[in-house]
C-alpha cells in the first residue's frame, strides 16, 4: 500500500542491523519501525541518531504484516526534539 500524504510523526531515530548492511530507522512511539530513505537520511543520522524527534514525513510504504521487512518513510523536516 502506498501512502503519499505528508504527516507529523513522533519517534526515535536509530541505526539498526549488522555491518555492513545497516540502515537508519525511525521507530514510532507505538513501536512501528520504518526504514528512513531520502536525501535527509545522512544528515539525520549524523545529527539525530538516538534522538526522540517530531518530524514531518511521508510514508512511502507501510509495513505489510505478512512480510518481515519494515515500512519505508521519507523525512522532510525535523520539527523538534522531545
Amino acid at each position, binding site marked *: 500500500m502506498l501512502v503519499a500524504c505528508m504527516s507529523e510523526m513522533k519517534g526515535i531515530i536509530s541505526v*539498526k*542491523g*549488522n*555491518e555492513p548492511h*545497516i540502515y537508519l530507522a525511525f*521507530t514510532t512511539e507505538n513501536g512501528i519501525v520504518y526504514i528512513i530513505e531520502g536525501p535527509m537520511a*545522512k544528515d539525520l543520522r549524523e545529527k539525530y541518531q538516538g534522538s526522540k524527534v517530531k518530524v514531518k514525513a511521508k510514508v512511502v510504504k507501510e509495513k505489510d504484516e505478512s*512480510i518481515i521487512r519494515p515500512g519505508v518513510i521519507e523525512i522532510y523536516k525535523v520539527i523538534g526534539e522531545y
Partner: protein
Amino acid sequence: MCFKVLIKFINLLIKSVIISSALLIAACGGGGGGGESDGGSGEITYESIGVSFSYSGPMERVYKIQSSGNVELTLNLDLGSNTRTVYYIFTNTNFSAETDSPKCLTNLIDPNNEQSNAESSIIKPLFSESAFLKNYSKSPARGKPEISEFNSNPWKHIGKEKIAGKKLNYPIENGAKGPLKSTVGETNDFMNESTTDTIAATCRKVVTDGTKTLNIWVANNCWSVGGSGKSYYVTQAMVDAMADKFLKSGTANDIYDWVTNIYGSEWGTHSYSDLITADNNIHILLYDIDNDNSTTGGTLGFFWAKDNFQTTYIDYSNQKIMFYIDAVMYATPAGTWEISDPMPAEIISTLAHEFQHMIHFYQKNVVKAVAESDTWINEMCSLVTEDLLADKILVDGPRGVTYDVYDAGSANNIYGRLPLFNYWNDAPLTTWLSGSDAIISYSVSYAFGAFLARNYEGAELFKDIVQGVTGKSLYGDYRDVVEAVKAHGGASDLTMADLMRDWGAAVVLSNKLYMPSGNKYNNDGYYSSTINSIYYQLGSINMFNYKYEYSSGNYLYEPWYYSTNGLNNYNDGAMYRGSNIYVKEASVTGMQSKTFRMRDGVKLTVVVKE
C-alpha cells in the same frame, strides 16, 4: 552546541553531608547557583549542591553521586593522610541528546591550578578528523564498515516491481522450494550486490552432523586449481579445516554447537511470505571480498540477511542461509599454512561473529517479531561471542590476550579491540559511528559487552539480550540489555544510566583484582557461565595492559583521561550522548575540593584508587 564560558560564578551555599566510606552518596540540595548564557535563548540556571565524604581506605571506593537538573556540585573529598589516585567520571545519561560537557569551576577561577600531566591536556580530534581514519583503515574488520552508507536500505530492491517480473539475470530456483544440500563439484553464480554482480563458485565441501548440513563454496578465481590473480589460493585442506571448526558430528564440539547453544537456531519455521523456508543447510562462500587481494586486513566476512529472502522479494537474494568469508586472507600463511596462523585464525573467529548475526536476525526479527536490534547491540553480541568462544576455537578473541591465558595478560599489549577503546573511551556507546569511524564503535561496544559479560553471567546474559527475558518485552534497543542484566544479578531498579556509570568505574578499576559485582573486569582468572552443560570462560581484562599509538611516536598505556583543566576544553564544550568522560588526578592527599558544573542528565561517579 557551543559552551560559552561566560561564568558568573556565585559563591555557593553548600549544604554538605559526610558519609564515610559509603558506596552511594545522596547529595542534598543547596541554594543559589551560577548561570551562563545558553547562546541566546536565556540564561541557564544551576542549583548549587554539595556533597562531602571521607575516604577511610585502604581499598578502592566508588561513589555514585546523585543529582538531578542542572547543578553546580561542590565535592569535598577528604583523603586524610592517604595518597590516592582519584577519577572523576562524568556520564551523559541522556541517550537521546548531546549536552554541554561538564566544567570544573575550581579551575576556571584558578587558571594556575593546572595539572602537570601534559598528555591529559591534549585535545583529541573529533572523530572525522582522527588520524586513525587515515592510518588504520585496513585493520581487520568484521562486516564492511568502510563501505557503509547510512542512507541505505538493505532491502532496497524489494518491491512489487520485482514480483511483476523484472528480469532476473540469475534466478535461483531451489531456494523457496525446499532447497537440498549441495554436492561437491556443483557450481553456482552467487549474487552479491545485484543480479549482475556475481561470484562464480564451486561447492568444495558438504558435511553434516546428522541434523545440519554445512556447504562450503569457494570462488573459482580463489581456488588452488585454476584460480588466478590472487596472492594465495584456497586448498581442499583449508576447506576441510574450516568445516571441522564449524560443524562436525558430536555435541558441543564446534562453532555451530557453541553458538546455537547460547542464542538458538539460525533458521527455522516462520510465518512470513517473503522469507525462504528452512532446510537445515548453512552455506559459506569464500571469495575475495572487495576484490582487493588483501592479505593483511580489510573485510574478513559478513552476513547479509538479503539471502534469507525469496527472489520474488529481493531479486539478488541467493535464497540460502549463508555468510561470506574472505578467501585470500583465509589462505594467507605464516610459513606453511596452518589454521592457527594469524589470518586463518582471525577468519575462524569471524565465523563465530557472523554466525551470531545470522542467529540474531532469525531469533529477534523473525521468531520474536521485534524490531531489528540497534547496531551497537547486534555488534556487541557478535564481539562477545568471539570472546566467549576464544578458548574453544583456540583463537585470541577481541580481548587480545592469548586464548588460554585467563589472567589479564602482559603489559604493552597492542592486540584486540581494547587499545583503540582506551583512546576513544569517551565515544558514545549507543550511537553507531559512520564510515571508518565505525571501528571506534566496535571497540566501544566490545568494551561494554565485555564488562557486562564479566559481571552478569556471560553467555546466559547474552542469550537473554537476544532472545529476551521470559515474561519481558523485547524492544531492539538498550532496554533489552537492561532487562537481561536485571535477570542476571542486576538490581531490580537498575537503569542503563547505572550500567554506564558502573562500566566507567570498572574501566579505571580494571588493574585492581576482585572488585565487587558491577565493577568487575579482572579477577586474575576466568569468569564462567553455563548453558545446557556447556561451560563458557571469559578471561580477565586489565585496561592498563594495553598500548596504543595515537599519533606518531606517542603511546597511550592506560584509559585516556583528562585533567580538570583539560575537561574545561573538552570537545568544543559538547558531551556525546550516552558517553563517559574520564578525569584523573594522581597522587593527591588531604582535602580535595572541586566544584563541577553539570547539565541535566550528566552524573558524576568518583573512584578512589590506591
